C-alpha cells in the first residue's frame, strides 16, 4: 500500500515535471532530473513487492519516456556512458526480470499453499490419532476390540508420518533441485532466493514437527522386532537428507544467528530422535525378559545389554553352586526356552546386529556363558539320570542273571 502511494507520488511528480520541463531553464537540471527519476524507478523495481506494482511501474516508465522524449538529443549527449534509449531499455529489462521473479514466486506460492494444506491435514489427523492412542493405552483392561482399534490407529499414524516424511523430502528436493553444483557454492542473490524459498516452505517448522511426530510415535507405540529395521531405515534416510540440506542451509545462514540456532536445534532434535529410538528398542527387548519375570540390570546399548545378560547368567551359575538348584533350573529353562531361544536370539539379535546395535562378539559372549550355565544344569541332571539308569540296568542284569541261574539249576 505504501509502495502504491509512492507510485502515485511519482505519477504526480512526473506530471509536475512534465509541466516544469516546458519552462525549464537549465539543461543541467533537466539531465539531473532525468537521472534522479531513473534511479527512483530503478529502486522501485528492485523493491517491488507484487506483479501489480511491476505493471504500474511499466506505466511509469512509459510516462517518463513520454515526458522526456523532446529532450532526447540533449539526453543522448549527456547521459554518458548510456543514452536516452539505452536508459529505457535498461529499466524495461530490469522490470521484466522482476516480473519473472514474481511469476515464479506466484507459481511457487501456489505450490507452497498446496503443500501447506497437505501438511496441515496430516498434522491435524496425527494430533487426533495420538490423542486416541493415548486414551486406549491408558485403558487398563484391553479387550480384543480395544487392541484391534489400537493397532488400527497406530498403523494409521505410522502411515501418516510416512506420508509427512515424503512431503518433507519432496520440499527439500525442490529447494535444492536447481543447485546441484559441487562443491555447493551460491552467490548472494542465490542465497537470498533460497532463503526466501526456505521461508515460504516453512522448512524449519516442518522438519521440527516431523521429528517430534516420530518421537511421539515411538513413545506411544509398542515396537516389534520387525518394526526396528523400518524405523532405523527411516531415521537414517532422514538424517542423511538433513545432513545434506543442513550443510547448505548453514552456508546460507552463516551470518544469521537466529537461523543458525534453528539449524542447531534441529540437529539436537535428531539426536533426541536417535536416543528415543534406541531407548524404546532396548525397552522392547527388555519387555521379553520382564514378561517372564526375569529382571536384568538396566541397559541402553549393545555392550550394556551383553554385560547385563552375562552378569545375570553368572549370578545364576553362582546361585546353583551355592544351593537352590531347583529354582535355578526353573530360571534356566524359562530363560533359554521362553525368552532367549524363542524371542531374543531368534527375533531380536539378528536385527540388532544388522542395525549395529549389538556386535557379534557381544552375542558370542552371552552364548558362551549360556553354554557354561547349560553344562551346569544339564550336568547335574545327567548325573542323576545316569545313576537311575545305571541302577535300573544293574537290577535288570541281576534279575536276568538270577533267572538264567534258576533255569540252569532246575535243568540240572
Amino acid at each position, binding site marked *: 500500500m505504501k509502495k502504491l502511494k509512492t507510485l502515485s507520488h511519482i505519477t504526480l511528480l512526473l506530471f509536475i515535471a512534465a509541466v516544469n520541463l516546458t519552462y525549464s531553464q*537549465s*539543461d*543541467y537540471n533537466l539531465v539531473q532530473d532525468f537521472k534522479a527519476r531513473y534511479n527512483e524507478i530503478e529502486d522501485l523495481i528492485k523493491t517491488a513487492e507484487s506483479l501489480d506494482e511491476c505493471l504500474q511501474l511499466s506505466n511509469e516508465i512509459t510516462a517518463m519516456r513520454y515526458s522526456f522524449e523532446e529532450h532526447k538529443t540533449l539526453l543522448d*549527449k*549527456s547521459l*554518458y556512458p548510456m543514452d536516452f534509449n539505452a536508459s529505457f531499455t535498461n529499466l524495461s529489462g530490469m522490470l521484466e526480470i522482476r516480473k519473472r521473479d514474481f511469476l515464479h514466486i506466484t507459481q511457487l506460492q501456489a505450490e507452497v499453499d498446496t503443500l501447506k494444506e497437505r501438511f496441515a491435514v496430516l498434522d491435524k489427523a496425527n494430533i487426533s490419532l495420538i490423542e486416541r492412542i493415548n486414551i486406549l493405552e491408558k485403558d487398563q483392561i484391553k479387550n480384543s476390540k480395544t487392541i484391534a482399534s489400537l493397532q488400527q490407529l497406530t498403523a494409521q499414524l505410522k502411515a501418516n508420518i510416512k506420508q509427512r516424511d515424503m512431503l518433507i523430502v519432496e520440499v527439500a528436493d525442490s529447494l535444492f533441485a536447481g543447485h546441484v553444483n559441487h562443491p555447493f557454492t551460491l552467490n548472494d542473490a542465490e542465497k537470498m532466493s533460497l532463503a526466501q524459498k526456505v521461508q515460504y516452505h516453512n522448512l524449519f517448522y516442518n522438519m521440527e514437527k516431523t521429528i517430534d511426530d516420530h518421537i511421539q510415535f515411538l513413545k506411544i507405540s509398542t515396537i516389534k522386532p520387525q518394526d526396528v529395521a523400518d524405523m532405523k531405515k527411516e531415521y537414517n534416510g532422514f538424517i542423511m537428507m538433513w545432513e545434506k540440506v543442513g550443510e547448505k542451509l548453514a552456508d546460507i545462514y552463516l551470518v544469521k544467528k537466529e537461523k543458525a540456532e534453528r539449524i542447531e536445534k534441529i540437529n539436537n532434535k535428531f539426536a533426541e530422535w536417535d536416543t528415543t529410538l534406541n531407548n524404546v528398542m532396548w525397552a522392547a527387548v527388555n519387555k521379553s525378559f520382564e514378561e517372564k519375570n526375569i529382571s536384568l540390570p538396566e541397559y541402553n546399548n549393545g555392550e550394556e545389554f551383553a554385560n547385563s545378560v552375562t552378569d545375570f547368567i553368572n549370578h545364576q551359575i553362582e546361585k546353583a553352586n551355592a544351593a537352590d538348584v531347583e529354582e535355578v533350573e526353573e530360571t534356566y529353562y524359562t530363560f533359554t526356552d521362553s525368552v532367549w531361544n524363542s524371542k531374543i536370539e531368534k527375533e531380536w539379535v539378528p536385527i540388532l546386529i544388522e542395525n549395529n546395535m549389538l556386535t557379534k562378539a557381544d552375542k558370542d559372549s552371552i552364548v558362551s556363558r549360556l553354554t557354561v550355565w547349560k553344562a551346569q544344569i544339564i550336568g547335574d541332571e545327567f548325573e542323576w539320570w545316569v545313576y537311575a539308569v545305571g541302577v535300573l540296568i544293574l537290577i535288570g542284569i541281576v534279575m536276568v542273571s538270577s533267572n538264567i541261574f534258576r533255569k540252569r539249576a532246575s535243568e540240572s
Partner: protein
Amino acid sequence: MKKLVLFAALIFPLLIACSSLVLSPVNYAWPVENVLRADNNGFVEEKRHSISFNIKPILVTEFNDTTNIESREIRIIRNSSGFYFITGSGFKNVYVFESEDGELSLKDKLAVSETAFQNPVFNQKESHIELRDSEKKYVLTNNDAAGE
C-alpha cells in the same frame, strides 16, 4: 660544418611538416553545464571531463573574499571553441578561460549584469552559450555578452 648544414636541411622540412599538422574543426562543447562545489581548499573537480582547478582566484576577483569557500558552488560549461565559462550565484560576471599548459588563463571577464545573479544556469546552444537567470536570458560568446 657541411654535415651540420646537411642535417639541418633534412630535419627542417620535417619539423615544418609536424608543426603544421592541424586537426580541424574540433568541437569542445560540453552538452550540459556542470555544477561544482569547492572543497575546503577551494578545489573543484569535474569528473566526466577530468578537470580540476582552484576557484580561490575567481572568488577573490569577484568578491574579494574567500571565506566559507566550502559552501561555494560554481557553474561551468565549455563552448565548442574550447573556452570555459564560469559563474555562480551572487556573481555579476562570467569568467571566460582558455586552457593552457597546466593552467586556465582568463580570456575575458564578461560583465553581464549590474545586479548579482540569483540562480544562473548555462545552456549549450548551437552558436553560443546561453546564460539564464530567472527571467533574464543572455547570449555569451568568447568575448561578448548580450541580453536577449
